[in-house]
């Protein structure tokens, strides 16, 4: 299942603050289901990559302690018209990606 990402950001003076809002439950695997006494199976995004014009700028690893529906903001050295791409993978192998022209 593709993971939904919404991105926003504008380059200004060679710097772009790019914000991404990701739709994901971020289940850490530690939360108990009170009815069955078993934990909910872990499902969280564990790798996020950001590229600017195809060149890797940020490589980030996450744990289940990142909030549900994660928000991420980063600062990139990018000029207007550059293509910023966010791609992510969760621990069950689901992926998502989104590109944005800053």
């Amino acid at each position: 299942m593709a993971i939904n990402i919404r991105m926003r950001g504008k380059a200004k003076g060679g710097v772009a603050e790019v914000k991404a809002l990701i739709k994901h439950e971020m289940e850490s695997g530690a939360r108990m289901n009170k009815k069955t006494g078993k934990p909910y199976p872990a499902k969280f995004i564990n790798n996020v990559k950001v590229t600017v014009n195809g060149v890797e700028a940020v490589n980030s690893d996450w744990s289940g302690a990142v909030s549900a529906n994660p928000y991420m903001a980063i600062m990139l050295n990018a000029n207007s018209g550059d293509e910023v791409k966010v791609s992510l993978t969760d621990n069950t192998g689901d992926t998502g990606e989104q590109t944005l022209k800053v």
Partner: protein
Amino acid sequence: MKRRSFLKGTLATGAAAVAVNAGLLTPSTVLADWNAKAFAAKTTDDALNSVYGSAAAAASGDIKLKAPAIAENGAVTPVTVDATSMSGVESIAILASKNPMPLVCTYNFGAAAQGYVSTRIKMGETMNVIAIVKAGGKLFKAEQEVKVTIGGCGG
């Protein structure tokens, strides 16, 4: 046949683990994905040792760590780490000191990125948020206590 392939598999992973231990392969190249050991570590020091190979970080006033003094809902604690005033920032890690597994996330930066991260993390109780910044091969840190009124690890 099954047994044979099973043995083969264990041997192969065993060899890879030995290679990592011997320092032949850096963990980041072997595990392009995920540093499971660091994220499973129970203490901040253990986590930092597995990520950066050291837990000795000097406090630095150049790191701007922005987190609420009181978080009403620990499940969504906004945290911003701003190290743009430092030069040569290679990596930022965010830890929550008393979470069962303190390491929350690590960010490694390439040339096109600046040392800045803003995100939202889960916190189970009142504790310190720790930001670790690796710049110029050295570790720096900033810490701030966040009072949590409703824990976030259960929901």
